[in-house]
């Protein structure tokens, strides 16, 4: 069945270092979304990418959608302690705009001050 894989599962960085998480889908996706979950919190939508090769930036966060629309990445430049949390990628499950998403396993980021 359809799968979305995310690596690494955990990442510990020193504050100020960069961080990247990678997401790979077994199928071509119409779009990919990224969510952030703070410790003890709930996932919160960050961004959606739709176009092949799309790159979007949010301050220190850079999101990319692969040319084949099967992979994506999130890069954080100069991490801060406020970046701590788990980052999930998610793609539509099947077809149609039902909101059903299949999530990657998430990458948990720890930042040492």
């Amino acid at each position, binding site marked *: 069945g359809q799968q979305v894989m995310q690596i690494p599962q955990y990442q510990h960085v020193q504050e100020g270092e960069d961080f990247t998480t990678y997401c790979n889908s077994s199928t071509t996706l119409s779009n990919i979304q990224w969510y952030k979950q703070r410790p003890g919190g709930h996932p919160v*939508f960050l961004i959606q990418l739709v176009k092949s090769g799309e790159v979007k930036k949010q301050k220190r966060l850079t999101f990319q959608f692969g040319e084949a629309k099967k992979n994506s990445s999130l890069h954080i430049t100069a991490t801060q302690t406020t970046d701590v949390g788990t980052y999930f990628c998610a793609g539509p499950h099947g077809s149609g705009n039902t*909101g059903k998403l299949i*999530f990657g396993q998430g990458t948990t980021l720890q930042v040492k001050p």
Partner: protein
Amino acid sequence: DAGITQSPRHKVTETGTPVTLRCHQTENHRYMYWYRQDPGHGLRLIHYSYGVKDTDKGEVSDGYSVSRSKTEDFLLTLESATSSQTSVYFCATHGPLSGNTIYFGEGSWLTVV
């Protein structure tokens, strides 16, 4: 964030007892979902609903049932709780104006002893 309320937020129950988790939304969103979150597995879809009395199974539906008698309420029932159902449960919603984004409730922490 969408107005999504989950109850109870925390519960400890004994093996073999039935448990019902409630999700209430004030956004009049058509689609509602129940996910469970476990370490190493990310978020997995249990059941979802397209509307009142219109529900379907997700990828991990065994041992769970749902009901949606009103647009705003989506109930998840563990018919006979087992220790493997110890998890964090998230309700989520999706509406016509939210694009492909889904909005999560704050989660319900369930421990089965």
